[in-house]
């Protein structure tokens, strides 16, 4: 997947349509639409309601943020298996600080520092010491979760003394009335979507982020082209950590507890979503829109399962199946392109 579209718009119409047809986002969009139509047809009453959408979107927020984190490192030919456990560690730190009676800002800042530390460690080990991302972040996966458990002895960390607004803002909603209908949008959702959109724009337009694609596509060439490869790789891991941090803050606020077992196996879901969304372990590709649509699709599938009274146990299975299917279709598509 060639991530940039800079030239497409200039290109002639037929080619343009071709490209659309080739673009994975387009197909994901279709599939999502299909899912929506199907579900609203089967469960018109419950599915096709703002309430339900709100729920679906709200619930996929964390997965989305982690998937964006994963997408970012995948773009630079990296991998971050530690998103789940860094999420847990960060939330635990924030919760502990709040519990100790620190004001919100320092506590959250503390969490930020920890998350960034993990990201920096990952980045440095990968970029400077040249160790495989898989191993580095695997170690981080284990270590971060471990520290979190040590800090909490595994307990829920609640912060009764913390300001009420913090322990409620993720859940509380801002209402808008469109065409007489009232729509409440939880901050959790609002923040996530805003960040996603902004990041989507930045990633496709903002030079420093654009450079990530070049680094991933061909590190050696990028180096000779004058890009500061090591720095860019490290910053990719920092960005990833930032997303994880955001997810941690929201989750901590939403559940009002820090917990060392947050996000177990979240890294796998994130990786799956990113790949379905068009990222590749060989770097150089991946898009925010694609990842978003992939997460959305998986969320709809999950939602549909329960709405249709399907056995929720099969959800995870479909998850893997969808991943394999996506990869398979991609293989076929590229083969046809190559002829």
């Amino acid at each position, binding site marked *: 997947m060639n991530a940039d579209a800079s030239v497409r718009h200039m290109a002639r119409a037929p080619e343009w349509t071709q490209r659309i047809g080739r673009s994975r986002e387009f197909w994901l969009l279709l599939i999502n639409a299909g899912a929506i139509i199907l579900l609203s047809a089967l469960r018109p009453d419950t599915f096709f309601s703002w309430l339900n959408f709100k729920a679906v979107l709200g619930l996929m927020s964390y997965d989305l943020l982690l998937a964006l984190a994963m997408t970012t490192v995948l773009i630079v030919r990296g991998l971050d298996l530690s998103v789940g456990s860094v999420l847990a560690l960060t939330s635990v730190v924030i919760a502990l600080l709040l519990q100790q009676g620190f004001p919100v800002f320092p506590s959250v800042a503390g969490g930020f520092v920890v998350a960034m530390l993990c990201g920096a460690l990952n980045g440095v080990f990968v970029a400077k*010491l*040249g160790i495989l991302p*898989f191993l580095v972040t*695997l*170690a981080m996966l284990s270590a971060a979760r471990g520290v979190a458990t040590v800090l909490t002895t595994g307990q829920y960390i609640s912060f009764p003394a913390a300001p009420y607004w913090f322990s409620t803002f993720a859940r509380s909603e801002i209402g808008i009335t469109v065409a007489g209908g009232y729509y409440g949008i939880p901050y959790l959702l609002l923040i996530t979507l805003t960040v996603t959109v902004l990041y989507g724009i930045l990633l496709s337009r903002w030079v420093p982020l654009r450079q990530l694609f070049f680094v991933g596509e061909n590190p050696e060439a990028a180096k000779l082209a004058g890009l500061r490869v090591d720095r860019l790789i490290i910053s990719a891991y920092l960005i990833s950590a930032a997303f994880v941090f955001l997810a941690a803050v929201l989750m901590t606020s939403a559940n009002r507890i820090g917990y060392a077992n947050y996000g177990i196996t979240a890294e796998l879901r994130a990786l799956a979503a990113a790949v379905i969304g068009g990222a590749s*372990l060989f770097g150089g590709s991946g898009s925010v829109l694609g990842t978003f649509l992939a997460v959305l699709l998986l969320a709809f599938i999950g939602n549909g399962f329960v709405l249709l009274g399907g056995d929720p*146990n099969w959800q995870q299975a479909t998850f*893997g199946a969808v991943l394999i299917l996506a990869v398979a279709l*991609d293989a076929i598509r590229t083969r046809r392109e190559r002829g």
Partner: protein
Amino acid sequence: MFKRPNSKNVSVSTIQYLGLSTIILAILFGCQIVFGNVLTEANMRVMAMNMVFEGIMALGMTYVIIMGGIDLSVASVFAFAEILVAKLMVQAGLPMGLAIPVTLLVCATIGAANGAMVVAFRVHPLIITLGMLLTLRGVNLAITDGRSVSGFSDSFIWLGQGRIFGVPFPILFFVAAAVVLGVLLAHQRYFRQLYFIGGSERAARFSGVNVERVKISTYVLSSFLAGCAGIMAAAAFGAAHWGHGNLAELRAIAAVAIGGADIMGGSGTIFGTVLGVIFLAVVHNAFVVSAVNPFWYDVVNGVMLLLAVLVSRLIAQSNTKKLLSIKQSKLESSF
């Protein structure tokens, strides 16, 4: 220029193996002296049983990793085998002699699917096997509804708990498998090809290696071993449960990496992996006997893994430097 090279790379692994062995012994005797009850037969047995299933998976993982691949799906195959064999015997009432082969066959098929997809889709095996991991884990959960299946015949239980000369059967299986696979990997032409594929697929193809076939068969082997482990685990615990062996794939990979194999492929030995497995077992046991807060376990694991990889990396670097320094001396002499 033509003096016999005191073939350096060999020494890489030897250094690592020696280091690892000494650490292992240090921990063992250290704990024995400080806390006692470590070098007892009972504790040894438990220690071994504690990692034996991961160990068996790690053997297959070694093959896959040497070939330049990776197999995340082993843990889910492990649990799947547990459940399948249990259902076949307890619920379908198949005799053990039939249930086990069937289970192993199915597991092998899963491996074949992994391999075939890796070959066909040309995506990173990490993705394929991740997909398989998620799928199977879901299947395991779904077909059991999260309940455990139990009620095995004693003859089956023996596979997990039976002992020969006081050694539990799974451990004997691990040892036997390690020896056989070790020998094959070291001396059998078909399996030697793994190194060539992992080292340079291009060179391998050039020399007429049937890369596709070797790849697929290796994933089959990996799943097959996971299946064996699963069957014995079901017998050992007397029950099959989807939650068993959670994250075992990561422990298996860690063992291989700690054992000095290059995750990029092309290097690694069964012996190294066995050391890696023992290492993990010993560290874990140390936590129990020392009764330090077990929460530290994960932290130590992570750090250990990183250190191990770092060490092998540094050794490798110093090697290339040695090679360069030959040229360097040539350069300086040329003045």
